[in-house]
């Protein structure tokens, strides 16, 4: 990807953010509509991969200075803590709690510990995908 792909880069600048936003929406809405941690995470990674294709590795690392390996760890930690969290309240592992609240602007929505678990999944998926792509990319 040495040559200057002006069209691709310009489009990417817009598209990547659209994809990112969409992935966030899909991730959060996972409990009610198609989506969730897996799809959300994959879509986020797809956006970053698009950035990688349009620009080069260096630019992208400058924009997103994240060590994705730590992201995997953080994701696993969040998920397993959510799993184990139930123990604190004397209920079996993996017991989720939720409640519906009315928030200003957002209206009637539900707050659910499953989102925390899904957040862990999301982080792991992004971390894994990006670790793989980045490591292979760096090795060239």
């Amino acid at each position: 990807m040495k040559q200057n792909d002006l069209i691709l880069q310009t489009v990417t600048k817009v598209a990547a953010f659209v994809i990112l936003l969409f992935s966030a929406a899909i991730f959060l809405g996972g409990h009610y509509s198609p989506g969730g941690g897996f799809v959300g995470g994959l879509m986020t990674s797809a956006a970053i991969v698009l950035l990688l294709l349009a620009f080069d590795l260096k630019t992208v690392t400058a924009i997103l200075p994240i060590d994705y390996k730590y992201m995997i760890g953080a994701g696993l930690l969040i998920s397993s803590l959510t799993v184990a969290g139930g123990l604190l309240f004397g209920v079996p592992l993996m017991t989720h709690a939720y409640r519906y609240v009315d928030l200003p602007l957002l209206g009637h929505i539900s707050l659910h510990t499953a989102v925390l678990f899904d957040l862990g999944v999301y982080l792991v998926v992004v971390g894994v995908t990006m670790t793989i792509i980045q490591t292979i990319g760096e090795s060239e």
Partner: protein
Amino acid sequence: MELLLAIVIGILFMSATYLMLSKSILRIIIGTGLLSHGAHLLILTMGGLKAGSVPLLSDEAASYVDPLPQALILTAIVISFGVTSFLLVLAYRAYQELGTDDMEEMRGTKTNE
């Protein structure tokens, strides 16, 4: 529909097996990719097809398609992605170290006796 899909699955498996039996590591990896496609469709077919609406609960739908195979397949898709990428890197590294992508030439038993 099920009959059609069963044939498609059979062909996917057949093609995957043929690829996996060849000597080139690339063809083997592609074979595993096809195999997982076939397995996903197989799981889906087992649960029955189009017996209801999309498994998103709503007041209109009277019945839904089986959600369990879908959950299983979702997991399988992601896992097979992980495995495929692992295999890819393995092949790539093996090629770098050994200079071949032929599985017969990679056999390691002669040296570790």
